[in-house]
């Protein structure tokens, strides 16, 4: 069943159906692109129609993580500059027919796309999609402005490290100034063992500092790297803890109330906890 967020919702732009979700971080290398790819796949597997847009012009990556790099004919800049129709730049995923990717240009000038272009482009897609996910480039320059301009919701990816959280805080401030808040937080690459030993900040520590809501905690997981190597995001098949975390984020985006997984590696512990949850409800 599709969420009913259709034509009746008032909006001063085009008739709205899809939710535009921008994934950003400030700092590079925190797992933003992997997160976008996996949430996109997870949403598509939950029967949502999804388009991923790589807004990182000049440094495209999302196509590689998705394993679609060999099928690029047209890109985002081609659409904006009118060299092709929007549909022609949408690469359809092999296994998930309702998942599309609009790749970034690899060689173009960063200023080739404007925030107004992004709003126009996503508005064209809104009626046909349930979710439009935008992978934002690192930094706070033009690419960031482009990526957040059409956003209905912003997800901030960070790691439990001082520099990554500091940059996330900067992004939260900028989003507030642009009236794009309140953003939600994805804490990526959490090492449960280190958190337990007090050698890593916990999700609670980070949300306490940033004072925003958490939408996902993704444990550090080797299969993230191996799946990126293969160009098959782990949410496609894998049932690793990271895959479950991404699926939970997808479900929360769809409005479901999904409890957070306990950060423990032992399956017995997980079962005990889930029984507790089941019993408590």
């Amino acid at each position, binding site marked *: 069943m599709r969420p009913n967020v259709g034509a009746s919702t008032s909006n001063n732009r085009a008739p709205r159906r899809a939710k535009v979700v921008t994934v950003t971080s400030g700092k590079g290398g925190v797992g933003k692109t992997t997160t976008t790819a996996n949430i996109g796949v997870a949403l598509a597997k939950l029967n949502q129609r999804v388009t991923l847009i790589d807004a990182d012009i000049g440094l495209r990556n999302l196509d590689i993580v998705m394993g679609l790099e060999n099928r690029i004919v047209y890109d985002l800049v081609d659409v904006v500059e009118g060299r092709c129709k929007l549909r022609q730049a949408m690469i359809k995923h092999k296994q998930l027919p309702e998942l599309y990717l609009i790749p970034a240009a690899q060689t173009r000038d960063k200023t080739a796309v404007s925030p107004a272009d992004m709003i126009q482009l996503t508005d064209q897609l809104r009626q046909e999609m349930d979710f439009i996910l935008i992978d934002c480039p690192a930094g706070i320059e033009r690419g960031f402005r482009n990526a957040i301009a059409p956003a209905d919701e912003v997800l901030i990816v960070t790691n*439990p*490290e*001082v520099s990554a*959280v*500091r940059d996330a*805080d*900067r992004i*939260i*401030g900028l989003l507030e100034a642009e009236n794009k808040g309140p953003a939600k937080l994805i804490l990526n690459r959490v090492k449960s063992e*280190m*958190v337990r*030993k*007090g*050698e*890593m*900040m*916990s999700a609670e*520590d980070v949300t306490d*500092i*940033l*004072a925003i809501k958490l939408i996902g905690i993704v444990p550090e997981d080797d299969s993230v790297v191996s799946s990126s190597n293969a160009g098959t995001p782990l949410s496609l098949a894998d049932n690793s803890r990271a895959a479950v975390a991404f699926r939970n984020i997808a479900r929360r985006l769809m409005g479901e109330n999904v409890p957070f997984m306990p950060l423990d590696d032992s399956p017995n512990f997980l079962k005990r906890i889930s029984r507790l949850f089941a019993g408590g409800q």
Partner: protein
Amino acid sequence: MVGLLERMLGRSSNKGSGSKAKERLEFILVHDRINLPPERLEEMKAEILEVISKYVAIDEHNVDIALQRRDRNPLLIAEIPFHKATEGIEKDDPDYKAEEPPPDEEGDDEEAKATE
């Protein structure tokens, strides 16, 4: 004995690099959010104390001015104790100082300790 052990355990877990990270972040972010680097804050504190000293005798050893936050909103909390108005005693008189009660250790910051 048990208390001591607990204190040692409690201490060791507090000293994990995770809580160190959180402390450092709190400090960095409170300055980031108002765009006031620590050295400028020190200037501001000195100026505040200077102004107040014009009117009232300040107990300088127990001054505590610090940036804090409520949720995402930064605020300045100042605790500035005054000397009681005691006629005939200069505030810089060393004998006068020696007779003061020992400063309340709780909540003392490093700055206050450094001046002792």
